């Protein structure tokens, strides 16, 4: 899907029209669901499908790009693919590697969900790259927070508050993003090892000054998925050519690592990033399986839940297909200081179980008050982050 790039005058018209829509909605005491490509509609808490859609797709375009400032400013409806093409021309990129499900996704959706891909391990999450944004509130007022500079501590960090808020606090219109140069060199190695061992190794490497930029442990197709089966640990190095070479040589001699050619390596990481990897397909054998996303502290050992597993981020991100009940998965994650989100499951399941691990009462209270303060008419994406919010 191509970006519908507007001139500033057209953008102004769109904003005026949208402010009108918000006013009508407010007057009718109704609400709206914000949508870009809709490629992440499966993710998170489902909303009432009858809610009218406020589409950002007409509000697109890269507004400013200055490669020497490492900043790009784009409107919410800009297709990620188009934004990345603009950056690639100048050998720059979004280092956190946001997913493009089905090749789709917009800048607004990327920020609203705050999802990050394999590059998050070393580069940090989406929110670290949102330098500023402009949002429209329920009164149609345009507000700008943050900006285009790396260091900015004036006022509260509203840009990060909106990142990952699933659109419940306002309509994101424009985002300024920090971009990074493509690394001088990249190389991926493959090490055959069982799951438990992969976690220990990854933690060890991350405590050393090594140019590790991503890791993933994937089970061998033939190996039993339970009890920490055999699999492959993939490690991507990125940085100065000399540093990458030195790391690869060390891994070849110390861990029996095999170097992957560039094309299959890139294809592998892209398949994780966009979740086209076979692992993310619903298992045929048991329709009761649901995919859980477990986020756990570093050094967390293998968790005792039966199911197929894929590990990213040095073991801090664990994907798990299981038919176990939500309480079991969540208490296993909580027992190690992490949390579990229901990632792929039916809308019914997501309604019943709640996608996110329930918040503590004090946090829940803060969430309610923030929502009430910033979106008092509950116009934007009601219930999309947490049911009832």
């Amino acid at each position, binding site marked *: 899907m191509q970006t519908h790039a507007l001139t500033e005058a057209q*953008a102004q018209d769109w904003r005026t029209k949208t402010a009108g829509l918000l006013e009508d909605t407010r007057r009718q005491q109704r609400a709206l669901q914000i949508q870009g490509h809709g490629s992440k509609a499966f993710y998170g808490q489902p909303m009432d499908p009858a809610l009218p859609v406020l589409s950002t797709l007409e509000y697109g375009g890269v*507004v*400013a790009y200055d490669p*020497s*400032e490492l900043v790009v400013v784009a409107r919410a409806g800009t297709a990620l693919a188009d934004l990345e093409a603009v950056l690639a021309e100048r*050998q720059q990129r979004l280092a956190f590697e946001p997913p493009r499900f089905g090749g789709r996704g917009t800048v607004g959706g990327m920020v609203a969900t705050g999802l990050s891909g394999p590059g998050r391990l070393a580069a*940090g*999450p989406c*929110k670290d790259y949102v330098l*500023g*944004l*402009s949002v429209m509130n329920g009164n149609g007022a*345009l*507000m*700008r*927070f943050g900006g*285009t*500079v*790396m*260091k*900015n*501590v*004036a*006022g509260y*960090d*509203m840009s*990060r*508050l909106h*990142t990952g808020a699933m659109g419940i*606090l306002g309509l994101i219109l424009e985002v*300024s993003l920090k971009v990074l140069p*493509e690394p*001088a060199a990249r190389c991926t190695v493959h090490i055959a090892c069982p799951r438990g061992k992969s976690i220990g190794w990854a*933690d060890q490497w991350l*405590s*050393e*000054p090594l140019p590790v930029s991503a890791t993933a442990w994937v089970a061998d197709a033939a190996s039993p998925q339970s009890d920490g089966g055999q699999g492959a640990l993939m490690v991507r190095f990125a*940085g*100065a050519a*000399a*540093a990458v070479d*030195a790391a690869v040589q060390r891994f070849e001699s110390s861990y029996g690592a095999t170097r992957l050619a560039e094309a299959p390596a890139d294809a592998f990481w892209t398949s994780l990033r966009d979740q086209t990897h076979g692992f993310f397909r619903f298992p045929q054998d048991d329709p009761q399986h649901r995919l859980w996303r477990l*986020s*756990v*502290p*570093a050094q967390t050992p293998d968790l005792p839940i039966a199911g197929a597993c894929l590990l990213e981020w040095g073991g*801090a991100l664990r994907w798990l297909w299981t038919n176990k009940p939500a309480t079991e998965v969540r208490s296993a994650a909580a027992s190690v*200081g*992490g949390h579990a989100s229901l990632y792929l499951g039916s809308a019914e399941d997501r309604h019943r179980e709640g996608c996110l*691990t329930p918040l*503590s009462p*004090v*946090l829940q209270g*803060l*969430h309610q*008050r*923030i929502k*009430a*303060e*910033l979106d008092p008419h509950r116009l934007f994406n009601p219930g999309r982050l947490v049911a009832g919010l």
Partner: protein
Amino acid sequence: MNAPTPSWRLGELRFDDTTQPLSPEKHQRLVAALSAQLPADCLVFDEEPLKPYECDGLSGYRRLPAAVALPRTEAQVAEVLKICSALEIPVVPRGAGTGLSGGATPHRGGVVLSTARLRQILAIEPQARRARVQPGVRNLAISEAAAPYGLYYAPDPSSQIACSIGGNVAENSGGVHCLKYGLTVHNILQVRGLTMTGDPVVFGSEAFDSPGLDLLSLLIGSEGMLAVVTEVTVKLIPKPALARVVMASFDDVERAGQAVADLIGAGIIPAGLEMMDKPMTAAVEEFVHAGYDLKAAAILLCESDGTPEEVEEEIGRMKTVLSQSGATELTVSASEAERLRFWSGRKNAFPASGRISADYYCIDGTIPRRRLGEMLRKIAALEKKYGLRCLNVFHAGDGNLHPLILFDAAKPGEFEATEKFGAEILETCVEFGGTITGEHGVGLEKVNSMCVQFSQDERLAFLAVKRAFDPEGLLNPGKTIPTLHRCAEYGRMHVQSGVLRFPELERF
């Protein structure tokens, strides 16, 4: 640190301290309630021992608080908050008191809650690359404790030997290495804290993310207005095997500014990238004898760190770019001692300024890198306008400026002129598409400038967030976010950033 001239009382004119001194009865009740919960050596009520708390690093603003509490446990912190909530007495959290924007300035009718006695390192977990510490632990103490494991805590504000991690969280402190390693917000996993009502709450987690809104990021840099920090879990990162710094001289400041943009444009992210102009270089050279090029119009310090292979490769690329950008001289540190010597001048810019002038005032704004040259010209013009000298040090890599305006507080009108000079620099930052504070915070000092940077709707959104956390407005009130009334009084219009260039474009 800003000019420590105790005779100033100007700050009182600017501090919207809406509190009244406590009535004798209310003071009695406060003393009784606090004394019932905290041991006597954790409380200060008498004027003389209260004195050290009357200001932070921005010593132009002073207030004597009604009391200071120095709790030793989180439970005691909670008690102090509950008591103050019940009595409707404002609370100002205070770390090491090194802040430069007056964020810890007390209220005459309020309590200062000091974290000075909460200074235990609770855990260093090398394999998990994190440390759990109490808020009063000094920034540098964390890196020292992690050093045996080859790890360190990255943000390194110049006050790192004294400043506390709790204060760093409040201010979202930076440092000379944040271009590559990020600010405080990039290096904190979890914060345990208490709301103004004394309820414990955990922001973030030891995992990479947490469910719900990112309240951790909202808390970091909130200048003690949303919650009181009682425990911080920081990320530790592997210490680079090697660091070397290139010192480059330029015969023109704008060319030096361009070299900064050229480095970044070439895909290089230096571990540190700092700039000093000629007057600043002269001032620090006299102080530390680092061997700086005194003929240069500007000096750039450009650091590379990583494995020896990485550093060699990157230093080579840096030298190439810097030469092409017109550097007149390039020196690469040959040893760790030399690297530290090159840095020593930059790290001592403030005390060096204190030696050549009775007083100085440090400004902290950020602009897009490409406008560094233009900004320097503007500052030169302002020097003439106000008849005051200004020395310039920049965290050039991220466009963060620290112009140091020299003045003499003893001369009538000079401080006022200095403040106007500073305010004009900050307004120019906003106009250039930047911000009024890169790392020192708004505190009291820049409350007025917030009216310039943010529109009324934006300020209302900040006030809304404040209410969500602290409905009664008792936690560090009157700081950071100006009231609408105050902005009207200040009379400066909200400046649309970037209005001079590309007026047809939306910018923020």
